[in-house]
């Protein structure tokens, strides 16, 4: 029996969703006396509930009031205890189109979608949208409530027709649907069977939620244990995490994803440290391994054969993304991918399509905006083990996080790993960076000069390199202007083009550092997040971000390339400082005064390079 049922409530306030949930809450004893009093004595404008009667919509729905107060419309959580002892957790998401993100959040953990259909309006675009999102998020089944049957004279033919439409729509999305006639306003067939529905012999809504069981036993794919935390005590080293996928037992074979390490489960402990002989999915456990294997937070444990099959580490994936940020997706920009305690840098290398949620059609797309859903290809810096989402909501899902603001920009569902011979294993060569540095008698490093066009980055780079060269050091300057003449001549100046420009220059700098050189980069690189991605390619101490701080008026006065003049004439829409912003570094390793002495600036840079 499923002890805790997670429900997503879909439909709009107009469909009577708040009233329906309020009815359920009251029928299961979830509404307190003071809440009922409030709902008896309070009336919203336009309410048709009789004076002195309970307006059930007021029990659940603070949402409208919030809207008026300008507070974010959000997912609300309500709890009900069914007479059978089953707990129901209702995630109530607002129904309007612009809240796809919230609906997807509410659906992401749900077992059942309770979907409202207004008998007077029929299956609408919004109904299909909610079904589509639930299907996408892997909600296995739907309980559809055809509401307001009182308004159509309890007409069986209206219900039958709508029930057929809903079933067909759900079927199209691969979901199982039960359809229930009701009128939430007077509570008909919500918790009690209704005398107005003599032709109906199915369950009430409450009955359907009580009887719900998964269509089939969840197929046990074999356990996965994402390690959250390593517990250490006297002579004890345990790996703590929550079991997903299938049961785990002492003596089970264990592999650690990405590295070929194997062992077996020694002890299996539940919360509090009590020994268990089996732990089902959903149990928070601690395991000890029979062998001394290095495992840390973020590692994924699974049966060795699972790690050879579906979970074998990959560096590229086809992923369905739900874009959740105001700022649109940028191809080529580096984000942080988070999954099960792991965090790895990842780049969206291609947008394949965008989903038309209502028709289910796929549209051509180059980017994704807030609330868009689409398919992308994603490449990670280091290989990771991810299941397909249809196999597991736990180990097949991920988040993308902006490197600077740290906001969640997307939720992702893995379609499949992309191998295509691109799972590259780095090869180690005997002559390495250290050997090359020794031969040159220097320590390799990147000095990254960022600043407005005309700030004096190239001039400073030139002065610095002359000095270093004079000291017998081996150097190279990567100048934005020069790189765009060759390696990056295919790139434009849109934010996406700039992101890719920075990425490529950073990768070249990485190669040159590996070659043992001191690299000076002179590049506008206006966006913080791109510079953060560049820095992330290097070890601590190998990368110095230097802000060449020159007042914008001074840069415009110098205008060595005539860019400011062109921008003023409206010919350069993406000019930094005009059409596009320049984001100065928040914590640069050094700030040099671009309007000050060149020699002093070079002195400061040389000091920065001294070990």
């Amino acid at each position, binding site marked *: 029996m499923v002890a805790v049922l997670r429900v997503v409530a879909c439909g709009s306030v107009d469909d009577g969703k708040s009233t329906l949930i309020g009815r359920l809450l009251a029928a299961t004893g979830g509404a307190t006396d003071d809440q009922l009093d409030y709902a008896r004595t309070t009336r919203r404008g336009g309410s048709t509930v009789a004076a002195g009667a309970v307006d059930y919509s007021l029990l659940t729905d603070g949402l409208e009031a919030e809207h008026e107060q300008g507070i*974010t419309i959000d997912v609300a959580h309500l709890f009900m205890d069914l007479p059978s002892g089953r707990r129901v957790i209702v995630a109530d998401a607002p129904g309007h189109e612009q809240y796809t993100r919230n609906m997807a959040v509410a659906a992401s953990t749900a077992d059942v979608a309770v979907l409202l259909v207004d008998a007077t309006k029929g299956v609408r675009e919004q109904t299909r949208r909610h079904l589509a999102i639930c299907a996408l998020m892997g909600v296995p089944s739907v309980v559809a409530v055809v509401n307001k049957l009182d308004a159509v004279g309890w007409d069986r033919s209206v219900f039958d027709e709508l029930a057929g439409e809903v079933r067909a729509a759900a079927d199209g999305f691969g979901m199982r649907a039960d359809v229930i006639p009701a009128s939430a306003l007077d509570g008909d067939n919500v918790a009690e069977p209704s005398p107005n529905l003599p032709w109906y012999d199915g369950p009430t809504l409450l009955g359907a939620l009580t009887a719900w069981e998964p269509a089939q036993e969840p197929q046990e794919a074999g356990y996965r244990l994402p390690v959250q935390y390593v517990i250490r005590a006297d002579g004890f080293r345990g790996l703590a995490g929550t079991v997903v996928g299938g049961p785990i037992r002492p003596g089970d074979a264990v592999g650690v994803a990405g590295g070929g390490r194997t062992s077996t489960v020694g002890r299996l402990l539940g*919360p509090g440290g009590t020994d268990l002989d089996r732990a089902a999915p959903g149990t928070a456990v601690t395991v000890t391994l029979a062998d001394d294997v290095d495992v840390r937070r973020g590692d994924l444990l699974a049966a060795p054969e699972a790690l050879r099959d579906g979970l074998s580490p990959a560096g590229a994936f086809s992923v369905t993304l739900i874009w959740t940020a105001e700022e649109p997706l940028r191809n080529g920009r580096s984000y942080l991918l988070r999954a099960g305690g792991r965090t790895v840098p990842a780049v969206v290398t291609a947008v394949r399509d965008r989903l038309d949620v209502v028709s289910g059609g796929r549209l051509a797309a180059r980017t994704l905006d807030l609330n868009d859903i689409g398919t992308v290809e994603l490449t990670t810096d280091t290989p990771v083990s991810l299941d397909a989402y249809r196999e597991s909501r736990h180990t097949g899902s991920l988040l993308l996080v902006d490197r600077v603001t740290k*906001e969640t920009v997307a939720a992702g569902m893995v379609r499949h790993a992309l191998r295509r011979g691109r799972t590259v294993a780095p090869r180690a060569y005997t002559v390495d960076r250290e050997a090359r540095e020794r031969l040159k008698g220097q320590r390799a490093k990147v000095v990254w000069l960022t600043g407005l066009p005309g700030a004096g980055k190239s001039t400073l780079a030139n002065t610095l390199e002359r000095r270093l060269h004079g000291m017998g050091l081996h150097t190279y300057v990567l100048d934005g202007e020069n790189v765009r003449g060759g390696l990056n001549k295919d790139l434009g100046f849109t934010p996406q083009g700039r992101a890719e420009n920075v990425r490529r220059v950073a990768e070249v700098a990485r190669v040159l550092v590996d070659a043992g050189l001191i690299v000076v980069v002179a590049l506008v690189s206006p966006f913080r997040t791109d510079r953060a991605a560049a820095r992330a390619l290097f070890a601590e101490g190998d990368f110095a971000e230097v802000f060449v701080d020159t007042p914008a008026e001074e840069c415009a006065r110098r205008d060595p390339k005539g860019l400011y003049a062109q921008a003023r004439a409206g010919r350069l829409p993406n000019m930094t400082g005009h059409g596009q912003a320049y984001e100065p570094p928040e914590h640069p390793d050094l700030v040099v005064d671009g309007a000050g002495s060149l020699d002093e600036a070079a002195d400061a840079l040389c000091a920065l390079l001294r070990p």
Partner: protein
Amino acid sequence: MAGEDAVLDMLEAEAVHILREVAGAFRRPVLLYSIGKDSSVLLHLALKAFAPGRMPFPVVHVDTGWKFREMIAFRDATAERLGLDLRVHTNPDEATPFTHGTHEYTRIKKTLTLRKALDDGGFEAAIGGARRDEERSRAKERIFSLREPGHRWEPRSQRPEFWWQANTELADGQTMRVFPLSNWTELDVWRYIRREDIPVVPLYFAADRPVVERNGSLIMVDDDRYPLEPGERPVQRRVRFRTLGCYPLTSAVESKAENIDEIIDEMGRDRRSERAGRLIDGEGGTSMESKKSEGYF
């Protein structure tokens, strides 16, 4: 009964998962301990989550100086019994519920003190025992609730919580509040206390206590600082508390429930909201939200 145990198992597993995530993801987490029943459950879960190891974070209590004496005695006994790294923070600034009004008193003695305790400790994540069923505006609270610099709660910057994946990354100056008991109800808390035999402050159980009645609220006169009206005298009544806080702001309920079974039984009959006994919540429907945006828990 099987259903009840299975529900508690799920809630326990979920809370343990969240507590471990906090310990793994943040450099300096802290557990906020308010001495009440929810805090007692939270502490018990935190001990279970890391057994046989030790709970890897300290415990902070914000003491307003107006807590029930039995709460403070219970706090110190609990810290002693469990060997907690307990840090008590009090704001020396003068403020009482009688002279400053409840809102300003709460701001000075609770909100500002809490903010300072978190800043001084350099804590980037604070674990609290708030539940979504406590109050309507809590129903949409996140489990991982982001605070902007200055501990501001910005409804618009709250992160979507997909699946069981938490985004625990923080930008400069941001901190996180974490609520492992989000999906627990008041009944779950008592059932879990019964099942796990967790000690709680005796004030939750009915006893004869000296009370005065003010605006329909029963206030226990816990010491001689309580300003009595002329002619007003505390009388002994059989009462208990559903929530605990500052004694002048916490109203008692008349009750005969002397043990947990009787409390659970009483909850089946008494259908009033739990926080109805908190005088500080009652200032307008969104007062919790306005307190939260100032940095209250």
